[in-house]
């Protein structure tokens, strides 16, 4: 990983790209959690534990004591990931993204069995290679529904990482019935002015969020209430995640015979321009609103 083919060297380049990725990831998936693992000298080092806090991960990357050298074992890394993800409830999307610098994976066991386990637990594994295409990564990604890509240069690395930020669309057809109802609470934001006791840091702080179930104060959302364990989310976070999981269906193009109005912005739609129609609500939209709804709003 000390090679200089990605300037200044692979580790530095990777850390820079990863920091952007982490910020982007939590921005788009505020309800998700992440753990960073390092495969080095034939062992798996957990750089962070499973957490939803981007600054925690970024700090770990910045700490400067990341060693990436010696042989790596893809199988060990995947096994570790399986163990970590074992506690994630079924409704969650489980993904492993591997950034491979090495072109060799020295495993002690049968990696194909591990791939089968990943398949059974529907853990999606993607790999980004920093040097060249390795067959086992194709096997891994193809069997688990992930993607395998190879980096050309530093900019390409950022681009490939960005492609992994957006979560996959949930397929409504094979919905898991267990996952239909999840306990969640929308906490109440306390405005600064009246210091009170914070249960997560166990000190007196100025602001925070009140758990709607037990009334204790937490510092950060999203997260679990440290007293009653309720998942606390803000409604904005929920929508943000929701729009990726259940994207708005693509509108169909139509040609008008007479004038009409856009349902969203009420602008005039003349017969010369195309308009779009939503298959669910059957309302008409103009081109601008179509882009806005699909790319930014995420809600019809």
């Amino acid at each position, binding site marked *: 990983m000390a090679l200089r083919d990605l300037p200044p060297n692979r580790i530095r380049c990777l850390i820079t790209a990863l920091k952007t990725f982490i910020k982007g990831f939590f921005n788009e998936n505020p309800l998700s959690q992440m753990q960073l693992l390092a495969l080095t000298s034939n062992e798996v080092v957990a750089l962070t534990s499973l957490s939803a806090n981007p600054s925690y991960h970024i700090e770990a990357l910045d700490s400067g004591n990341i060693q990436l050298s010696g042989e790596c074992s893809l199988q060990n890394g995947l096994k570790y990931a399986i163990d970590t993800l074992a506690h994630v409830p079924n409704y969650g999307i489980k993904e492993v993204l591997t950034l491979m610098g090495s072109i060799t994976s*020295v495993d002690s066991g049968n990696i194909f069995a591990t791939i089968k386990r990943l398949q059974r637990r529907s853990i999606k594994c993607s790999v980004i290679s920093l040097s*060249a295409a390795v067959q086992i990564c194709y096997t891994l990604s193809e069997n688990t529904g992930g993607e395998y890509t190879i980096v050309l240069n530093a900019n390409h690395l950022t681009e490939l990482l960005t492609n992994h930020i957006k979560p996959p669309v949930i397929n409504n057809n094979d919905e898991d019935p267990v996952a239909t109802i999840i306990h969640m609470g929308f906490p109440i934001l306390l405005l600064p002015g009246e210091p009170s006791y914070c249960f997560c840091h166990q000190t007196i702080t100025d602001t925070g969020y009140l758990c709607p179930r037990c009334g204790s104060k937490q510092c950060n959302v999203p997260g679990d209430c440290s007293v009653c364990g309720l998942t606390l989310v803000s409604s904005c976070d929920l929508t943000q995640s929701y729009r990726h999981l259940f994207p708005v269906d693509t509108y169909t193009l139509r040609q008008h015979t007479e004038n009409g109005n856009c349902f969203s912005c009420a602008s005039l739609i003349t017969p010369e321009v195309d308009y779009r129609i939503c298959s669910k609500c059957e309302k008409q939209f103009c081109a601008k609103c179509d882009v806005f709804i699909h790319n930014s709003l995420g809600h019809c």
Partner: protein
Amino acid sequence: GKRMKFLIDGMPVYFPFAYIYPEQHEYMVHLKRGLDAGGPICLEMPTGTGKTVSLLSLITSYQLANPGNGKLVYCCRTIGEVAKTIEELRLVLRYRDSQLDFPSNTLAISLSSRKSLCIHEEVSQATSRTGVDAACHAITAPWVRDDPNIACGYYTGFQDRGKDMSLSGIYSMEDLMELGRKYEVCPYYMARYCLDAANIVVFSYQYIIHPKIASVTTKEFSKNSIIVFDEAHNIDNVCIESLSVFLDQYTIYSASQNILSLQKKIKDSKQADASRLQNEYEKLLSGVLREKGSQIADVLVPILPSDIINEAVPENIRKAEHFMIKLRTFLDYIIGKMRLQRFITSTPLTFMDGLLNFTDITPKDLQFFATRLYSLMNTLQITDLKKYQSITSVCDFASYVSTYTEGFSIVIEPYDDRTPDIEDPILQFACLDAAIAMKLVTEKYKRVVITSGTLSPLDMIPKICGFEAVISRSLTTTLSRQNLLPMIISSGSDQTLLSTKYQDRDNQDILRNYGMLLLDLAKTVPDGIVAFFTSYAYMETTVSVWNEMGLINQISKHKLLFVETSNTLETSVALDNFKLACDTGRGAIFLSIGRGKVSEGIDFANHYGRCVVLFGIPYVYTESRVLKQRLAYLQERYNIRDNDFLTFDAMRTAAQCVGRVIRGKSDYGIMIFADRRYNRIDKREKLPQWIKQFIGGANSNLSSEAALSMSSMFLREMAQPVTRESQLGLSLFTENDLENRVVA
């Protein structure tokens, strides 16, 4: 899905795919023109571009357009290739016949040895080819055929029912065996029986090239048949080997035992049934050499010019006992020669002169040795052919040496050059002229297609095989991206010039640099790497030197190492594990020999071979006496200089080696020629066009560092996804694209 039908010079061609590569089209055009011109054709096209399917689809369409055109005889090198070809043929014919308004009634048959076709419960259990042949002969020989207790049920079934079954359709070896089990007929004899009636025949080279085998299997094939030799880059060697005889100490010893046991059998037979030998004697007297109707002969007799075959067997070997005495004298003469402790090379004429001086055996007697033995073994009703193989070889030698005076050489070596202390005499009757066997084919059939991925330089094969090609072309692939990266590395990381020249063989600097190169490659190239050495001996020294330098340890941190050995079984186990290591991401290097089994028959498709590296130029072992004889003959007869032939031979081997890694258009690989001598124009020019086109100034005369950084860039680029759209119209054509295409 959609398929294609298009015209080539007005002839409709049925092609079973929706897309065609431009070079496939070009290939078919040249093939069609060559067939029209009615002569031998030499076509070179890289592997993995659908050569077989183009060939089959053009020739089957050609047969359709020109009825009365004889068979398509497709010759492959291995059984695996026969099976693959039949499957492609199925695809081609299914589409062609679906487009016809009338049934085509095509019969396509594949043929192989008894070993791979036998379905008899016990016979098929034998492990070797000769073992199966012998066991089969024991229950199908003419004198046991009618005995229901001994005779093979499947053979009887073939005699009773098989001959009346009029087959049509396509029969792979599996199909034949299934048919055999279903109707209880022998698949092997069925296949041989059907050869004459078949429109398409797929089998190995031997059935056409080997004069001895051809005389019984393919004699009746019509003269306007189309003969295709696939992977024919070594066809000259196949021709030569088919007429060469190799006798070693073991053969001589067991031949001598054979004579003893034959003499005993003659004696026994005289007591039991004297009339049998008497009958034979009379038959020989009247000149009936082969029994009429024994069209499917079981013992193969060397082909002799027809004027000889019609003569009666000379008087002094007509009697079985006399023949045995002559044979013993002949064998003793050979043994005496082999025990002389001297290297002897002589021509057939001088050999027979000497023979006539010391014994009373005339060349005329010798000519009939093989047929006489065949007759005797039939008379004595000998079934265990395997046991008498040695004496058969000796008689073959006798017949060849007295029949062919030109283009052959007798080489006797008392010991191996590498182990002069161990007495191990061998006698080789070496054919020096590939044209002798090849002419039997090209003069009979005319329309012979020689094709391979590596035929360059195109004028060499026709020259040494004694024919003139009406069309010879080297086609290159059209690619939307350059999927192979050939590089000539002339210096190592410390600027040591790399070479495996004889003087440099033990140069530690060179060996270290080769090792460093392999180590760096192991770090750069993912999955499989194949490395070729020029010889086993060179590989052994190199690997042990690397081990002393600690390089082997370092390399094995990145990739596992596997080695080709002269043991086939060992090598195939090594190959399996090599592939497993590539599949699991551990990565592996296969160390093999430039002229070994791996370099010819094993494919390293996709990730099994991302890089191939040639350490040195794979010249043939030049100290071989047989080779020296051949070189002298080529110089004298065809005016080909030693060096030209050796370089040609080395470069075709090199091309075969590096060609192992590119097995299709989606495949990609690096080819490294690690020897500075490759830079010379006489070497480079002899590479096939599809490799040569990528060797420019930027890829030749490189240092290993430069080569490695190019490799790493190349690997990244090749790993990017490709789409079909980017290839359409450029390297992938549809029916419409072909309409206005003109091939020069």
